């Protein structure tokens, strides 16, 4: 779930002109369409959902129907400038495996996810004893597609432990970037990561 299209804006600014992009879980292809029009990017999407697939084809995108959790074996190492994992991590079972695969086939990986440690989420849990629901996490427990809940600090720890270099990081509020105490005030986080040594 997107807070706004702020994340698209940031991603479009991050990538270079004519970059080769692989978007894992590309949805209806809005981000890829933006990257083509603004950066003349060469894009490829992977999506599982039938309806989203149809919408991608309608937009003229090159998209493969498949499950990213079964891996990206068809792609040689470093075959993309960027692999995008935007708002998909929280729905993936084999998150660790998918991140490693993304780092293998991409020179850089752009990864965006909702911050479970947002102040409102903390307060909801602390004082109301209820599962947080906010702009970035808009679902009740019984209907959410999210199977994992991670925070900005969780992700930074993960990168350190796995020898992953964080090149850029962005913390997103409702409509603008958050610069103060992002761990508390960011609804979403966006990282540009690469493998140390690459």
């Amino acid at each position, binding site marked *: 779930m997107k807070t706004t299209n702020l994340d698209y804006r940031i991603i479009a600014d991050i990538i270079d002109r004519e970059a080769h992009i692989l978007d894992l879980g590309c949805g209806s292809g809005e981000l890829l369409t933006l990257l083509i029009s603004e950066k003349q990017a060469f894009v490829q999407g992977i999506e599982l959902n*039938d309806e989203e697939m*149809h919408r991608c*084809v*309608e937009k*003229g995108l*090159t*998209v*493969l*129907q498949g499950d990213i959790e079964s891996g990206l074996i068809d792609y040689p190492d470093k075959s993309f400038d960027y692999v995008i994992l935007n708002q998909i991590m929280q729905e993936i079972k084999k998150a660790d495996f998918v991140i490693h695969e993304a780092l293998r086939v991409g020179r850089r990986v752009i990864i965006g996810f909702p911050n479970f440690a947002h102040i409102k989420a903390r307060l909801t849990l602390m004082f109301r004893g209820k599962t947080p629901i906010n702009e970035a996490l808009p679902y009740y427990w019984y209907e959410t597609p999210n199977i994992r809940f991670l925070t900005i600090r969780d992700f930074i720890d993960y990168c350190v432990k796995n020898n992953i270099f964080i090149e850029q990081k962005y913390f997103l509020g409702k409509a603008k970037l958050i610069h103060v105490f992002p761990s508390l005030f960011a609804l979403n986080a966006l990282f540009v990561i690469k493998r140390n040594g690459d």
Partner: protein
Amino acid sequence: MKSDSLGTVSTQYFVFARPPDVLKLESGRSISPVTIAYETYGTLNEHKSNAILVCHALSGDAHAAGINTEDNSPGWWDGLIGPGKALDTDKYFVICSNVLGGCRGTTGPSSNDPQTGKPYALDFPIITVADMVAAQRHLIDSFGIETLLCVIGGSMGGMQALQWASAYPEKVRAAIPIATALKHSPQQIAFDEVIRQSIMADPAWRDGYYYEHGQPERGLAVARMIGHITFMSDQSMEEKFSRKLKNEKLSFQFTDDFEVEGYLRYRGNSFVKRFDANSYLYITKAMDYFDLSGDKFMPGVKKTSVKFLVISFKSDWLYPSYQSQDIVRVLKKKHASATYFDLTSTYGHDAFLVEIADETRLIRNFLANIKVN
């Protein structure tokens, strides 16, 4: 969106490789002359840039759309081809031809051998999918078409689409291989061999020289029955027949008690009226020989601009989805723009002829992004 039929259409004939010319075949042998039966729908534009070639499957023919003037039958892909349809004949010039080795107007084993004045029978050379496509190439050239906007087909038609892209990448802007494979698996070859053996085991086959006596009807009917089982899925058979009886109770005899038996018998018996047994042998052999796997696809080409839409169906166990995924894998190696869709259907391999709504949405959107020059 309007969705009219094309109305009546008639099959036309194109003859090439007239003596002293010949059509050289992959086997090293040759045929002369060659007749191709074909139909066209829509109008070829001034730049000859709006042509779409439709390739048929094993038992198909040139009559892909409209109503045939001779027998009032609708084309085998009438739902997909016509004004306002996925292959929109208001926009595109659609061509479909009967394959080499066939028996529906194109030169094949039942055609007369000019040397003897009798049907070729087994003197007809073994042909391949590459030979079928080479023959189609002559037809396309005869229209003055330098580049096809798209080549599309299901099953063996999909093999031809792949062969076109592989052999003549500069002549194809887009290819849509549906429910097909880069090569037959041992399971697919095995089915084809059982199909061929059932024809050849019929004494009426007479080693292939049966034309004065009539078809090996029983063998061909059994061959077709086997085929039909492989075209359906467990689920589609359950939905269509379940264990329903033709009559209310069991006969306790070897008659066709169950509806599924009646259906297969009917399909087998009607097939022998329209299809030549030797053509079935030749064409299944061509499918078994087909192999564009690995480096055999687009040899020497590092990067291609041909755009691909690869489609499979989840319940198709004759040409399973993994074979289409193999196609995508080979396309990636050629840095081709490839879209792959594994459509949901319970119809098995037949889905490519049945799932018109999903195919229409997908193919129309895909083609809309390939601009006619």
